[in-house]
């Protein structure tokens, strides 16, 4: 049975809403999707087979194909790569009950489509669809748009009376020095009241920075530290937040372990987590972990900008998980390092085209462990990466990984939300 949600007019509907094709061999799933999407400003077409979906893509101006992964005659990954052939302007999204196993059984060509878990959470999926539509179709290689400049102008530095944030700031300043900087020192106090020594300290810090030619202002707020940091970052339109990592046990007075993670969860402002015990250093090597997704590639722009400022080498590292947990067991995964290398080499070419020396490396194993080990062995001065809050294998790969690295890396980390 073919369920056509709407008798589509030729190409685009007059209302100009994005057109979405949903493919699932299970009609109940299609109906649920239709119920969800028809309340949104989309034109929705339901297809029962991948073939039918492809026909829609050929006949209509389709913006997005939402497909199941496991279907009788064609997998979702295969369907989307055919869709890409037929209509490069159409983007895709895979709904699957087994997000992890898609990577294992049927690894998509990079850039990989976003994966969403089935059954889905309505709000997450709605939001995900909006984002996918906004981002548009994936681009490859030479079609890549030039990286947006990482114009770091306003840097928010939360301080708390401990010397760690000040030492961390001191160690990362050379990295930012090439920019026209404005630093906001933010002290969040737990209660109103006289804190004379706080003002004395902020004033000293401000003067020290001014002595180095850096425009700095100090600000005091009251309340929950993380909330105030987020609020202030928004109000001041901050381009970067610099935090100090206190290592595993490390907690300064008002900071708890989760400050960095909460900031990443709740704001789009990139985070530079410095190491107070490193001292002022030169920045020679930057490590950029990639997983084949555009989300991860977003960190290349940051790395490029930072590397250009200090003449560092960028090393891109692709980590292939050996085994990923699926359901109750583990699916053994035959490493496909040779499959990742062409992708990474392409990135290296792109970086070299931008006049930054670059290297590529593939490793296999647990992503966080491998990145940490490699950062240690190659004496990386900075790990530059993105993290994703929501779904997809980026969450599996990079959501947890970024958090793990934030806690454990021995070098500073530049991380932004994808």
């Amino acid at each position, binding site marked *: 049975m073919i369920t056509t949600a709407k008798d589509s007019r030729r190409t685009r509907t007059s209302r100009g809403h994005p057109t979405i094709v949903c493919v699932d061999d299970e009609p109940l799933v299609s109906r649920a999707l239709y119920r969800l999407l028809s309340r949104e400003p989309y034109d929705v077409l339901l297809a029962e087979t991948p073939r039918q979906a492809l026909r829609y893509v050929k006949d209509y101006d389709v913006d997005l194909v939402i497909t199941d992964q496991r279907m009788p005659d064609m997998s979702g990954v295969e369907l989307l790569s055919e869709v890409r052939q037929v209509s490069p302007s159409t983007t895709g999204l895979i709904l699957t009950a087994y997000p992890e196993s898609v990577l294992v059984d049927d690894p998509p060509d990079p850039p990989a489509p976003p994966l969403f878990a089935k059954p889905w959470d309505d709000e997450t999926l709605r939001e995900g669809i909006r984002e996918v539509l906004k981002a548009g179709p994936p681009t490859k290689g030479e079609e890549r748009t030039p990286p947006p400049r990482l114009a770091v102008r306003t840097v928010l530095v939360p301080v708390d*009376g*401990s*010397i760690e944030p000040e030492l961390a700031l001191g160690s990362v300043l050379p990295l930012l020095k090439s920019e026209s900087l404005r630093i906001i020192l933010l002290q969040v106090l737990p209660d109103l*009241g006289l804190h004379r*020594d*706080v003002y*004395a300290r902020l004033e000293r810090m401000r003067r020290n920075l001014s002595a180095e030619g850096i425009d700095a202002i100090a600000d005091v707020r009251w309340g929950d530290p993380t909330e105030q940091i987020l609020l202030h970052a928004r109000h001041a339109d901050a381009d970067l937040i610099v935090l100090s990592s206190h290592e595993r046990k490390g907690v*300064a007075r008002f900071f708890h372990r989760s400050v960095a993670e909460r900031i990443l969860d709740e704001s789009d402002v990139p985070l530079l987590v410095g190491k107070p015990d490193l*001292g002022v250093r030169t920045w020679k090597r930057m490590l950029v972990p990639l997983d084949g997704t555009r989300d991860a590639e977003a960190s290349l722009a940051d790395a490029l900008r930072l590397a250009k400022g200090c003449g560092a080498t960028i090393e891109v590292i692709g980590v292939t998980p050996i085994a990923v947990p699926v359901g109750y067991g583990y699916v053994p995964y035959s490493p496909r390092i040779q499959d990742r290398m062409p992708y990474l080499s392409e990135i290296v070419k792109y970086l070299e085209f931008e006049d930054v020396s670059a290297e590529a490396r593939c490793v296999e194993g647990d992503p966080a462990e491998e990145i940490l080990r490699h950062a240690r062995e190659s004496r990386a001065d900075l790990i530059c990466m993105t993290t994703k809050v929501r779904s997809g294998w980026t969450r599996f790969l990079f959501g947890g990984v970024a958090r793990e690295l934030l806690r454990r890396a021995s070098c500073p980390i530049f991380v932004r939300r994808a």
Partner: protein
Amino acid sequence: MNLENDRPVVLCVDDDPMVLRSLHRLFREEPVEVLSTLKPELALRWMGEHDVDVLLTDQRMPGMSGTSLVEETRRRSPRTSCVLLTAYPQDVTANTNALQETDGLVSKPWDGPMLKSTLREILRQRDFEPEESSGE
């Protein structure tokens, strides 16, 4: 605003964030600038680059004891006065050498007014010492 500048700097070192927190609270109306760190190594690094007038350190910390931090401070930053905070005063009093190095010994838990007056006393004594003492 100038009154706020150039206050004596007190650096507190303890591996327990709650202790640092209460020290900050205790001194917040004193005419000093209070800094803190959880790590003795960072304190040494800091004192290598910045002036610290008074070091207030815990005795038992992982990595470095308060007395060895004091000894190291003596070498690297002779102008810094050192006060040991300890829940086990007998540890320190047994070590007469270390005791000579410190300018004060305060038992934990401390008595707030007493710790404040110890600090004031140390700062007052420092005021009488010549700033750049070339000879003792």
